[in-house]
């Protein structure tokens, strides 16, 4: 009996000191930023896990809509992460009940780069509201498509709950924007 008591009393401090040392080595970072967005290198911060509502959003990027192909899986951003993609513009969307952004860099068949950002605004009226708020002075309306605006290096439109921003980086990719926009609109049924 006395040996058992002895063993327990000797093991308790060994265990406790070991625990203290172990905890000391694995103290969580003191900075709220230490588990940073860049923890995985220079990649974009890890977004939310796709939920069933994201399936139609992600399906818009499948294949080669309008001849443009996503270079990688679109990145998803929720309300919290939206600042990590558009910084101070995020509240404009969040105030209008933004749900999810799918953003992808795409390339046309002849190698021109463009970006495609599709915002799921939950309701058509929210998408209409952000479309109006971001209307640039000199953007032109598109014939027979009042929910679309074409600007220099830019094409934006809304359809139902979605608000889409396409941005080009040269004349070649700029020429590809209307075709991509039409193809995305077709998929938004």
């Amino acid at each position: 009996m006395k040996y058992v008591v002895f063993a327990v009393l000797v093991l308790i401090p060994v265990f406790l000191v070991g625990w203290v040392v172990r905890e000391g080595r694995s103290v969580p970072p003191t900075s709220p930023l230490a588990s940073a967005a860049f923890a995985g290198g220079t990649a974009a911060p890890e977004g939310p896990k796709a939920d069933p509502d994201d399936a139609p959003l992600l399906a818009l990027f499948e294949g080669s809509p309008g001849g443009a192909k996503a270079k990688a899986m679109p990145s998803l951003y929720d309300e919290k992460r939206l600042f990590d993609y558009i910084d101070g513009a995020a509240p404009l969307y969040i105030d209008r009940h933004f749900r999810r952004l799918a953003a992808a860099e795409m390339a046309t068949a002849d190698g021109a780069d463009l970006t495609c950002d599709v915002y799921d605004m939950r309701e058509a009226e929210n998408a209409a509201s952000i479309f109006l708020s971001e209307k640039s002075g000199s953007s032109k309306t598109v014939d027979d498509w009042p929910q679309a605006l074409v600007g220099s290096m830019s094409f934006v439109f809304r359809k139902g709950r979605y608000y889409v921003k396409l941005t080009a980086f040269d004349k070649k990719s700029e020429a590809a924007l209307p075709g991509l926009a039409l193809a995305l609109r077709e998929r938004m049924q």
Partner: protein
Amino acid sequence: MIGRRDVLRIGATGAVALGSVAAGLLLHAREGVADLHSLPTIKDHRLPKLAGAVDMVIAHGADPTLNTRRAIEALGGMGRFVKKGERVAIKPNIGWNRLPEQAANTNPDVVAEVVRQVRAAGASKIWVTDASVNTPEQCFARSGIQKAAGEAGATIVLPEARAFREVDVAGRILRTADVLYPIIEADRVINIPIVKQHGLSGATLSMKNWYGVLGGQRVTLHQSIFVSIVDLAVMVKPTLTILDATRALMANGPTGGNLADVKAMDLVAAGSDEVAIDAFGATLLGLDPFKLGFVIEGLRVGLGTPRYKDLKLVELGS
């Protein structure tokens, strides 16, 4: 049976055990305190004000390189700000996957000219860095800054995980932060923001540009944005600020994309007072600086003055 001697032995062992635990916990607690206090802070990079020296310059002209060069010369030359052998961190806005024409990032010609001037002043090391909002490799390449600054002699520091060090901010929003190491290690820091409308803060100019030295999620910083901006401006006090207004993004900032939102301003402003520079930048966007929260907050905490016209100001025509 447990005898008297055994009871004493067990008691002594128990006391040793409890003592060990207490000592371990005490040591652990002291280590924690030591860690918190050993975090570095970022030194004040400002230089003492020179009597009679020009405080701020606005240089107009179609050539951004020339505007930058003339602005620096009118301030007394880069030698006033950088001494031989010093290490210099240059912080443009490289936050966005955008072309120079889209005016979301600092103009690459302005950055390259600053690098050349710093190099000519004898700097031993020149870093150009930013914690991009969009994918960094795309931002650094598409902005044209990686190529222009690299060719001018700068070392480009991408915001990889290993490029950040934790520092003590002691701010009202952030207590500590992960900051790009060139900002911590440099002898001199030069801020080169671009003029942009910003959906939340009204404008993004020089003080707001310090968001781009931090790792981590941005959402925390946007909850009290004017306080956050000024907290960071207190954290990093640059030697020199060069405001790029070659083109200004007048709407849909800070991301932009549509050239219809861009206005050619063809000017560069330079000086050491970030509040003054931001007050001037606000006027370019048609904003009243005295109604801009972070300018007023910057004035309140003593970072500078929004009355830039009261400074020794030189305006250079094209």
